[in-house]
């Protein structure tokens, strides 16, 4: 009996009732089993369903973007795609301006009208989990705690290094085809004294 009870519990209250009712219709008797305890049902929730994030139409793969915040602010980078989280996957390319494969918030980006053909760049294997940190990377020991202020060199895995190289190589092929494009990506964006950003066309 207990075993049967557990099975019913696992299957969920709805299923249990359904199963018992179907048996009653066939025999004309009420169900022999009736749960003595209230089975907790999840409350009806009106929690919002997450819609897929909206990415600005100007930020299609291949768009040259200007980063506006973070340590790479002012850099012109190539947008490769938008990820499930709504963040954009961008890269300098690293070889040109030092910006690695990186996720950025589209709110802190200016999308320009300049496009680069990135159809030959394979970034299908890169998603949000690609950027997840391993726990060993985050946690530090006691020594780590006391030496927190000391500057640590970033540890870049060999896999990341190889991926970056691959992506850079395929983008550079396209970039080199357009005159001045490499210099453009290598230069930083800034506003002069008479520049009015709200009146500028990007």
């Amino acid at each position, binding site marked *: 009996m207990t075993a049967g009870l557990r099975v019913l519990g696992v299957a969920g209250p709805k299923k249990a009732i359904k199963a018992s009712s179907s048996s009653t219709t066939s025999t004309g008797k009420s169900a022999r089993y009736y749960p003595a305890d209230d089975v907790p049902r999840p409350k009806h929730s009106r929690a919002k369903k997450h819609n897929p994030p909206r990415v600005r139409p100007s930020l299609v793969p291949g768009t*040259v973007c*200007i980063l506006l915040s973070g340590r790479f602010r002012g850099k*012109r980078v190539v947008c490769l795609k938008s990820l499930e989280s709504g963040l954009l996957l961008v890269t300098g390319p690293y070889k040109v301006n030092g910006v690695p494969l990186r996720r950025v918030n589209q709110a802190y980006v*200016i999308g*320009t*009208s*300049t496009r680069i053909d990135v159809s030959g760049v394979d970034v299908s294997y890169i998603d949000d989990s690609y950027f997840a940190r391993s726990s060993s990377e985050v946690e530090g020991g006691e020594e780590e705690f006391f030496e927190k202020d000391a500057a640590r060199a970033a540890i870049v895995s060999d896999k990341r290094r190889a991926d970056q190289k691959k992506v850079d190589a395929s983008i550079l092929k396209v970039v080199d085809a357009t005159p*001045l*494009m490499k*210099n*453009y990506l290598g*230069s930083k*964006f800034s506003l002069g004294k008479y520049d009015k950003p709200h*009146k*500028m*066309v*990007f």
Partner: protein
Amino acid sequence: MGFSRYVEVGRVVFINHGPDAGKIATVIDIVDQNKCLVDGPEEITGVKRQVISYKKVSLTDLKVTIQRNARAKTLKAAWAESDTLAKWEGSSWAKKLEAKKKRSSLSDFDRFKVMVAKKQKSRIIAQKIKELKA
């Protein structure tokens, strides 16, 4: 030095305010001290016959020979005869306006290309000056 541009019948004016801003028109008649009657001609410059305040126009060097209150047809013929539109477009005023318009429509990459071209130009000039001085 006296004035060289007058508000007079046949004077070509540049409209710098209102819906017709950026277009040119011809003074057809003078209404009073504050306003005049202008006409594009509409087929050439896109300005309809209307009364406009002097405050909204700037006088140009150009003038067409027409009679007071000339008809649209006569005005158009006068413009065609003196080739006024070409004269306007050839003026440095119109060229500057055109350049300004083009500048404002440049993309970020275009601006970068302009910057590079400017640097190259000044480098050539500096080199030439150096040669001349030596």
